[in-house]
């Protein structure tokens, strides 16, 4: 837990530093007609760095409890959600949301749930199809499309 806490503070301080750097570039003072662009970010960056320093102090002042940020047993299922979700986003970029979500739902049902092939086929095709009708047809909200939709003339 301590290591994760420290790592987060380090990242946040880095963010604070970047903000300050950019704020100084933009100008943190008074322009011709009011505060310059970097004025507000400068104070945000400063506050963030100060607050992070206090958090660092809190962490240093506390005895390490020895509780891990995430146990091996917890990390397994978390990753089992996270990487397929990432795969969905990658696939959406290439194939469009409809094909990607069909593959994603089908894969997940088989891999995690070991559902029967029949229900996998029905749901992994049915759910994207309903989505298509709701978004593209009824509400006219265009979603990312890929080669298949292009081939079908959408």
């Amino acid at each position, binding site marked *: 837990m301590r290591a994760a806490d420290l790592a987060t503070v380090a990242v946040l301080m880095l963010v604070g530093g970047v903000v300050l750097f950019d704020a100084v570039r933009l100008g943190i003072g008074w322009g011709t007609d009011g505060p310059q662009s970097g004025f507000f970010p400068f104070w945000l960056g400063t506050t963030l760095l100060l607050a992070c320093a206090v958090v660092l102090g809190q962490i240093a002042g506390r005895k390490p409890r020895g509780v891990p940020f995430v146990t091996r047993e917890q990390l397994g299922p978390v990753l089992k*959600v996270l990487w397929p979700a990432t795969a969905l986003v990658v696939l959406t970029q290439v194939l469009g949301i409809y094909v990607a979500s069909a593959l994603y739902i089908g894969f997940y049902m088989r891999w995690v749930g070991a559902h029967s092939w029949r229900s996998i086929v029905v749901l992994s095709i049915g759910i994207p199809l309903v*989505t298509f009708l709701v978004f593209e047809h009824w509400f006219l909200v265009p979603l990312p499309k890929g080669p298949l939709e292009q081939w079908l003339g959408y």
Partner: protein
Amino acid sequence: MGFEDLFLGFQHALSAQNLFFAFVGVILGTIIGVLPGLGGANGVAILLPLTLRMPPTSAIILLTSLYWGALFGGAITSILFNIPGEPWSVATTFDGYPMARQGKGGQALTAAFTSSFVGAFFSTLLITFFAPLLADVALRFGPPEIFAIQFLTFSAFVGLGGGNPVKTLVSIVLGFILAAVGLDIVTGQLRMTFGVTDLMQGFDFIVAVIGLFGIGEILLSVEEGLSFKGVATGMNLRVVLETWKVLPRYWRTFARSCFIGFWMGFKPGGATPASFMSYSFAKRFSKNPARFGQGELEGVVAPETAAHAAGVAAMLPMITLGIPGSPTAAVMLGGLVMWGLQPGPMLFREKADFVWGLIASMYTGNIIGVVMVLAFVPLFAAILRVPFAILTPVIVTVCAIGAYAVHNAMIDVWYMLAFGVVGYVFKKLDYPLAPLVLALVLGDHAENALRQSLIMSQGSLAIFMTRPITAVIMAAAIVFFAMPAIAPWLRLLRRRRARAVAATPPGD
């Protein structure tokens, strides 16, 4: 203000079309509230793109009804599955889940829904009377007052939010920083983009909401394993009627919780402390406090009444000041902007039919809501019995669609994923997410108010101390900010005094 306004509002809210939207909203909201990982805020966020082509009044009725439904749905998971969908449902699990395990799930659910309704109704009544008055006052506000109120908003998170106040501050500042990324509309300069074109449009808070609360919440909830376990509902008409016979006995708890809920609720982040406060008050004033935590009906009534009263009260600052009191209200505020409305006190002047339609729909939406959930609890609870391997990919897909549809941009889906991981890490490390979202929403607004104030005063911060209303609000905000530092001292002082009293020998 007058009753003719409310009457006009009811004409809107009771039209067949809007009743239909309220109905759909409540059903969708309850489903969303029951689903793990989806709550009111991201439910509204995901649905927002679909409302673009609707008349604003119908759109807001759909979204607020969804919010009421989500609040009801949260009670179902807390009581039957011991999963608090939202932080303010945590107190409901204390007695709700034990009751369900003793086979009294029906009583617990009836009590929860009825209390929610009472709390919501109370707050709606107060909003009906106070909103126009507050809007009138707010009309006279200039930039310094607006900035002061926003300052107060965030100080309330630090002072009243509970948890680690410094980490709360970090969350707030991080939200403001994310809001500042992109084009500065005042000077036309690009900020913190470092030449990356994708960063020019900045971060949309709706995407952040979907990632932080949606994906992050799922990651957190699967840590305990890839399944959800629940207790049977045991709900039927007889149970409902019998519970209703008992409930009036708790009128004192109802009244107290309503006031706590409203009072805490119109301040940001107030719903969670309201539910806990109401629970502990109910326990303190109860004749048998030992039964709390074992499955006491009053222990369900108190937090639910307060949480719902607070949830509705969060709409008050949104419609009168343009400052949302909760993440869900923040998303709705974003909706107002997307529909071309300017949130804030002018709404009462220029879009009276919209505001009063919204207020009237709070009455109708909650009535529809309580009837629907009482009648269909088993159906809603059955959603959580859908196998995990189907539910999870569907929820993730819905989140991805919602994120994409905000700007039709693929980059937003990537942001959503990143926000999901951030949400997971922050939640585990006790960084609160609601202040981050609110800061992201209000960022530009707050910065502009600050800039305009400073322009008015030629750069002197004294402007926040010389205008009477601003000075009062600022003073309150500073007290809130200082609260975490003062509170331990006060407690120490009180304990010392108590010890001194106890140490005085009797008979002196």
